[in-house]
């Protein structure tokens, strides 16, 4: 009887210990792990690498000169997300997006690319553009007509002295379920983050 009770005691101890260990394992298996939530946005050059952003390495873009980039975004938010990439035309005086206050650039929007992305999905596509027409007004050059991915866009607001220091700004916006709107950047817990890129170029008149 004494022998049996000792065996029983041992068995009960082992059973309780094993139950605790397996319960912990089961809990870990069924509970999703928290992870960092963020997006990645990038622009690649014509070789699909972080190089050769300008034809012949020359940032002076002539009218009719085709520039080929690849624009991409990856969703690391851990869920399905609706993403908008806003393409803006700026110059050296128009403000860039504000990382600290999470304010987008006031530069006018040229066009928007929109897509719903799965978790961990990368969305990459060509961004082929050229300046079709250019106007000069008292030394200020306005690239008035752009062609981007085969579509024509007009600009009458953004100019630059001698055509120097234009920039194309890419801003990542995402759908915010709380407000039901698309907002600049994204929310991760109580924090808000933003992501944007810019590439500078000079618009040059033919014959200059």
């Amino acid at each position, binding site marked *: 009887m004494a022998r049996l009770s000792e065996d029983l005691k041992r068995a009960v101890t082992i059973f309780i210990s094993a139950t605790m260990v397996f319960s912990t394992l089961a809990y870990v298996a069924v509970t999703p792990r928290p992870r960092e939530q963020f997006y990645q946005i990038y622009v690649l050059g014509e070789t699909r690498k972080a190089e050769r952003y300008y034809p012949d390495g020359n940032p002076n873009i002539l009218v009719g000169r085709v520039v080929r980039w690849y624009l991409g975004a990856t969703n690391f938010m851990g869920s399905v997300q*609706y993403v908008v990439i806003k393409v803006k035309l700026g110059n050296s005086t128009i403000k860039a997006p504000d990382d600290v206050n999470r304010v987008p650039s006031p530069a006018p929007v040229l066009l928007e*690319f929109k*897509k719903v992305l799965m978790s961990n999905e990368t969305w990459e596509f060509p961004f082929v553009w050229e300046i079709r027409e250019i106007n000069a007004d008292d030394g200020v050059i306005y690239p008035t007509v752009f062609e981007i991915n085969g579509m024509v866009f007009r*600009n009458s607001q953004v100019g630059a002295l001698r055509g120097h220091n234009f920039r194309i700004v890419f801003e990542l916006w995402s759908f915010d379920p709380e407000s039901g709107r698309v907002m600049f950047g994204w929310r991760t817990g109580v924090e808000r983050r933003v992501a944007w890129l810019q590439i500078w170029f000079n618009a040059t008149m033919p014959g200059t």
Partner: protein
Amino acid sequence: MLGLLSFSFATPSGGYSASTFGGSSQAIDRADMEFKRAIMAVREAEAAGADEDRLRILVEKLNSALWMIDRAEILLLQGDVVGASAQAERSIEISREIVSDAVKLRDESVQSAYYGRVFTFGLVPVASLLVTAGAHFGWKWWRRREIDRTMRMEIRGLKERKEEE
């Protein structure tokens, strides 16, 4: 998905009243609202642990609805009010389909996740019992082996002592 919007993309051609444009614009707004509802529904299904392949199908449909809204906006800017309304209505239809599919998928996923959890936690006592039985019989076998070994050593010792005598 190429969104429209430019500083000045195109000007609407004449012949349409403001109310006609307003009607189309309202259809686009409704399409946009339905699209956002569809996203929320898909995200709920995903949070419930929906299967990735089925989610991918819903996401593809979402992208179709999004493309149609973009297309409707472009058509409206070009003055094609009828075309814009048709695209917006089609987008609304797709978004509603997505909501309905996503709700079904969410319910299935909730149920499947529940059964999965019950199965996982149900395995806990079974695994514990197996470990307990294994440990119990393992302990018994080891103890018997040790006793046999000790007995053999004692017998060998006795035999050696007898031989020496």
